């Protein structure tokens, strides 16, 4: 299984907009990498450039040490020679062929023996649990079944790399959950490198071994999902990951002897960075607090009013208002709070984040206390 390396990949469309801007990315063998970002961030274009369906304007792409694309050297190996599998968002099943013909078509192209094709089609259909539909036309299948056929067709030739373009976005919520589990299992059994495009942060979180978060063609952060969640590099990453989203409090900073004093609205908070931090005169900062780190406490803490309470049974998402600031918080367990009732909250642990308001970069992670 190969290691895929993108070097300075840029894609400029005719109208002058840059879909992808100087992207550097190394995808290790057998990784499950998600390309994540809002629509129009260049993730699909990146995937299509790896497949060879789209031609980059600049840069180089390597599969292991073999160069498959280089704008400089004029190398561009066609998609059919890259040995990749591609799963399309709309499945792209050929409507005039039965399931069997759809799956066998690629194998015939690769000059497999007849018997081998037959047994492979049978085998993959059983794996994907579509054996009973093998002689149907795509139009006679449900969305979920079409999806399985598309996966079967893509996997049949045993591609070294599997590229997927939002494959679950056309399925309903329950099926999507089932398919997620199935994809993760497939990744394990095939051992192939998976590259997966999605705009759904929870899908990326749950599936991938690494997430590549993009915005307007520029790579924002490339790391394992939990790192991205816990220590986002900038405000965009912090905001994009997590649901409910992180609380952002603009504040003014003052460096003191024991930590930094932050003033936001009527509150004064003390921030203790986990690693030494020099503010070097920066005053305008943004404090980032994940909802689960707004702890409901019995006494002490800040008194607040419950603006909304949305229990799911497993946890309850709260909106709390105190001193003109609204924070979202998560209380775990089956609890509910009356609207407009008073609760107290405090801070605990050292996962609070400080961002530079101007550059939006993350400055430090640390603990927080009420002053």
């Amino acid at each position, binding site marked *: 299984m190969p290691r895929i390396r993108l070097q300075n990949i840029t894609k400029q469309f005719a109208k002058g907009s840059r879909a992808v801007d100087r992207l550097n990315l190394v995808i290790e063998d057998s990784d499950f990498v998600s390309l994540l970002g809002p629509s129009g961030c260049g993730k*699909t274009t990146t995937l*299509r450039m790896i*497949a060879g*369906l789209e031609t980059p304007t600049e840069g180089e792409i390597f599969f292991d040490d073999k160069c498959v694309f280089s704008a400089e050297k004029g190398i561009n190996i*066609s*998609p*059919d*020679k890259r040995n*990749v*599998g*591609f799963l*399309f*968002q*709309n*499945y*792209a099943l*050929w*409507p*005039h062929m039965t399931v069997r013909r759809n799956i066998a*078509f*690629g194998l015939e*192209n*690769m000059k497999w023996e007849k018997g081998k094709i037959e047994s492979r089609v049978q085998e993959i259909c059983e794996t994907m649990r579509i054996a009973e539909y093998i002689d149907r*036309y*795509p*139009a*006679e299948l449900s969305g979920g079944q079409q999806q399985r056929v598309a996966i079967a*067709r893509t996997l049949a*030739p045993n591609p070294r790399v599997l590229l997927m373009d939002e494959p679950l976005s056309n399925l309903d919520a329950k099926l999507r959950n089932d398919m997620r589990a199935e994809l993760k299992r497939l990744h394990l059994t095939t051992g192939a490198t998976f590259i997966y495009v999605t705009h759904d942060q929870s899908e990326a979180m749950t599936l991938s071994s690494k997430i590549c978060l993009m915005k307007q063609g520029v790579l924002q952060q490339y790391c394992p999902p939990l790192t991205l969640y816990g220590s986002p590099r900038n405000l965009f990453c912090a905001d994009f990951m997590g649901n409910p989203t992180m609380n952002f409090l603009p504040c003014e900073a003052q460096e003191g002897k024991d930590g930094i004093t932050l003033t936001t609205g009527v509150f004064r908070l003390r921030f203790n960075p986990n690693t030494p931090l020099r503010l070097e005169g920066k005053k305008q900062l943004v404090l980032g607090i994940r909802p689960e780190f707004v702890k409901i406490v019995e006494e002490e803490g800040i008194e607040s009013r419950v603006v909304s309470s949305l229990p799911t049974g497993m946890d309850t998402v709260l909106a709390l208002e105190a001193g003109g600031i609204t924070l979202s918080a998560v209380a775990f367990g089956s609890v509910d709070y009356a609207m407009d009732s008073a609760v107290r909250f405090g801070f605990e642990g050292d996962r609070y984040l400080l961002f530079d308001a101007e550059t939006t970069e993350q400055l430090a992670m640390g603990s927080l206390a009420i002053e």
Partner: protein
Amino acid sequence: MNKKWNRVKTFLSKPYNILLILLLVTLTYLVVLPLFSIIRDTFIVHASEKSRIKQAVGSFTLYHWIRAFNSSFSKILIWEPLWHSVYTSVLACVVAILIGGGFAWLVTRTDLLWKNGLTKLFIFPYIMPSWTLALAWRNFFKNAVVGGAPGIFTALTGITIPNWFAYGPFPIIITTGLHYAPFAYILIGGVLRNMDANLEEAAIILQTTKARMFTRITIPMVMPAVMSTIILVFSSAMSSFAVPQFLGLPVRYYVLTTEMYSTIQGTNPGVGYIIAILMIVISVGIMMVNQHMIGTRKSYATVTGKSANISLFHLKGARLPVSTIICALVLCMSLIPMISFVLQSLILTDGNYSLSNMTLDFWIGLSKGGNDYQDKAGILRNADVWKTLFNSLRLSVTCALGAGTLGFLAGYAIVRRRGSLISRTVENLTFIPYLIPSMAFSAIYLSMFSQQRAFIPSLYGTFAILALIGTIKYLPMASRSGVNSMLQLSPEIEEAGVIMGVPWIRRMTQIIIPIEKSTIVSGYLLPFVSCMRELSLFVILVTANNRVLTTLLFFYDEKGWAQYGNAINLLIIFIVLLVNFVVEKLTGASIEKGVGGK
């Protein structure tokens, strides 16, 4: 009793119910009854047949059927024309699909040069009257063998054109095929353009070769479009009259329509009516085949993908040569015929294309008193021509108003009562004229209205019969678009008015009509343009009194007055193009977009 009466009252209190009943009665009289009338006509003696059958006019006879199917004449009356019709129509389909489909592929999938201009010109023949290319062909390639002067080609090169090239099946196939090639291009090109690029990309990833991709993915995907092109071209070619008349007659090559024309105009109308019935049966058969094919297991509904930018096939070294050849072909289909009409309308003596032989006499010359072609007034100064032009315009406006209004009201009433028996019946009735080939339809009307019927006097030779047949023949066009647009308009919009007590007339004029404005306009325009260039529907119904431009062209052509014929033809083309241009500017809808809608 009271209950029943209340029911009737409730039923009639709904305006759309009244509309449906009126339509049912009218259409039964104008569409269904004539079908019986024409069947009856195949069993009776007509005035012109008195001497050969030796029976009283109007008495029962089996003569026509026997003569048509069981006599030594059946071969030349029925079987030969039938075979000629089928043969030329099938091959015209092949030509249309190869040229139109090939052009569609070149435009959508390759880096052909000058795409924009070429596609505009390629559509051109379809806007023009169907005989345009046939007339141009004759202008270019006519030979002296069957009489008359040789055409432009011989004049330029000195090469004599053999008969098989100048007349008969070969030019009929080519000109009909080329005339309908734009249709193939519109349908097939539409599929190629909208086809999900992912379907082909998926094949590329799975290492499909170019040839296999073309035969196994692309061709099957466009098959439905090809099939509908075949159905349309075949039935249009079968019912085409002008082309085989202009190109087949000189060598006595008859097809069903021309045979029908000559029998109805000649001494045996009964056989003509049998041919009309035969054509209706064939046309209905084709429709049934079409219906049958639609209901297959494979659904070709295109799920739109997100990437439309499929890479174009590079013609490389062949790019310029291929583009040039295509360009030449397109010019032959569009501009060069026009040039031939201009030339032909200017020359004094046939076959001599030198400048000294040219004159504007046929356009603006003054009459020298006589009525032969050398001393007739030029068409722009000829009172007869102006009268005919005025008649044409009056007829087109009448038919457009009639078909458009009737179609819109029918659409409204059909949709409001959708699912009921009466609604379905009326919907089917409005569609029947579409199934009947133009000439067969006019044969029906000839048989129906050439004598007094109850309170309706004989309409033969009147403006009314032309207006009537035009309105009914173009009704399917208008009612289809009426039904489609009413389906998209939710009934709540009208119901909001009902709740507030707005009367029906006001609901129509203040709510429905303003919303449906653009559809109504196109419902009027399509019949107008079709009527302007219609020949086969009117040709057996006109006399000197109710002549229209197209039949005047036909009349001049029969007389051999080529200059006047060509000039009139240019006049018709000019009007059609002008209307088309105005329509496009006013509504943004174009004829070529409209032709796809059934």
